[in-house]
């Protein structure tokens, strides 16, 4: 019995990180779907949901004004979720300073100031409701977009099967090269999976830093939604459309300085995954969610891995012979290296500060 438990845990972990990617590799060889891109230029509303972003908002607006896209087809909506700093004031000042005199060659910038801090989902719902574009582009205040990002995303909507298109978040090393290598590797692995899922059918969400969606497919999301960048584009999948990955539409961010930063982000993401599973039955239903297999293998199995690792370790303690001893040694070595890695970080951090 213990042996069964051991092998079940081991093979499940192996499947999550190696088996599933291998299945995707083979699947993509058999069935590869490419979006029928074209020079498609629909009216676009860019939505920035912000909360206390006074230090970044001007930079972001300048960046959006530099996008290569016909200005007359563009509007920028800044939806402030009850910011208490100077975010809203800065947007207003930017509107009057950067866009005067108002001409057709400059995109409209609209500020929607929320009366209270109620959450990002509410800020997004409010902004989309008032958006005039046929396509909605979602982005965050922090990341900088490549000038061609919107053009590249829009080209995918030439394909009537495409409901949403996600850009690529490129993590660049920080000034001074102090970014965390492990996080960079992890992110590259993640992007590789997303690309394959997109080639086969559809991604399981989008990159929150940069994605676009047909406005007609948007449904207001619950106010406490954590993973808006999963739930919003997945609405397109539930309606029978695809979410495609567009590697040429790029947004830039820095690799985190410390794994802890990525840790906080990850806790939020994974809490969001639990929330989606708990509160949204469509994700569980193979009838409604045609990506059920991918969703289960990529998202749900990941949630189980830490618990499987605990089971694997303790079941291994009852099997101290032959090949099982090798497994135990490898596990101890892995945990030992992780521990040394953590301690060395603490030391380096103390030195740096």
């Amino acid at each position, binding site marked *: 019995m213990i042996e069964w438990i051991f092998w079940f845990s081991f093979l499940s972990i192996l499947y999550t990180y190696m088996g599933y990617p291998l299945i995707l590799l083979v699947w993509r060889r058999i069935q590869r779907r490419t979006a029928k891109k074209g020079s*498609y*230029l*629909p009216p676009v509303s860019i939505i920035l949901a912000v*909360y*206390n972003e006074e230090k*970044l908002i*001007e930079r972001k607006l*300048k960046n959006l004004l*530099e996008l290569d*896209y*016909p*200005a*007359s*087809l563009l509007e920028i909506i800044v939806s402030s*979720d009850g910011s208490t700093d100077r975010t809203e004031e800065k947007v207003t000042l930017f509107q009057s300073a950067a866009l005067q005199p108002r*001409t057709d*060659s*400059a*995109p409209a910038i609209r500020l929607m100031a929320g009366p209270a801090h109620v*959450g990002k*989902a509410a800020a997004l719902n409010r902004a989309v409701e008032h958006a005039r574009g*046929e396509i909605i582009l979602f982005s*965050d*205040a*922090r990341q900088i977009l490549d000038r061609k990002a919107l053009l590249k995303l829009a080209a995918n909507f030439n394909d*009537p099967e495409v409901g949403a298109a996600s850009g690529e978040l490129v993590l660049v090393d920080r*000034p001074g090269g102090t970014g*965390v*290598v*492990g*996080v960079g*590797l992890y992110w590259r692995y993640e992007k590789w999976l997303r690309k394959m899922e997109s080639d086969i059918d559809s991604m399981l969400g989008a990159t929150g830093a940069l994605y676009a969606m047909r406005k007609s497919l948007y449904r207001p999301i619950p106010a406490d939604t*954590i993973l808006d960048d999963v739930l919003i584009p997945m609405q397109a999948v539930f309606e029978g459309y695809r979410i495609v990955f567009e590697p040429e539409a790029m947004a830039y961010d*820095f690799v985190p*300085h410390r*794994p802890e930063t*990525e*840790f906080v*982000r990850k*806790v*939020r*993401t*994974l*809490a*969001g995954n*639990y*929330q989606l599973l*708990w509160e949204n039955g469509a994700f569980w239903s193979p009838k409604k969610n045609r990506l059920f297999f991918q969703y289960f293998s990529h998202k749900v199995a990941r*949630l189980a*891995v*830490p*618990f499987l690792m605990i089971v694997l370790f303790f079941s291994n303690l009852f099997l101290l012979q032959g090949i099982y001893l090798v497994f135990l040694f490898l596990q101890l070595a892995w*945990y030992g*290296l*992780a521990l*040394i*890695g*953590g301690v*060395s970080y603490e030391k*380096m951090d103390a030195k740096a500060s």
Partner: protein
Amino acid sequence: MKKWTRKLLEVPYTFMAMNAASVAGLYAFISKQKRKNIWVRSADREAWESVPAPAVRMPVKESSKPFRKAA
């Protein structure tokens, strides 16, 4: 510690940290901490604040391509 050794050690450390995040994520979801932490994506913004802002190039070029109706 040499740079390559540090890089080597980061992989198991990050893997473990990511898995610990899964457990912490479950706890956060159960204890409803999520509601307070919705804007956590703004963390780590200090890196951007240290980079000079780009110059604005206005106005944006108008395209000659006609736009088509969505399918």
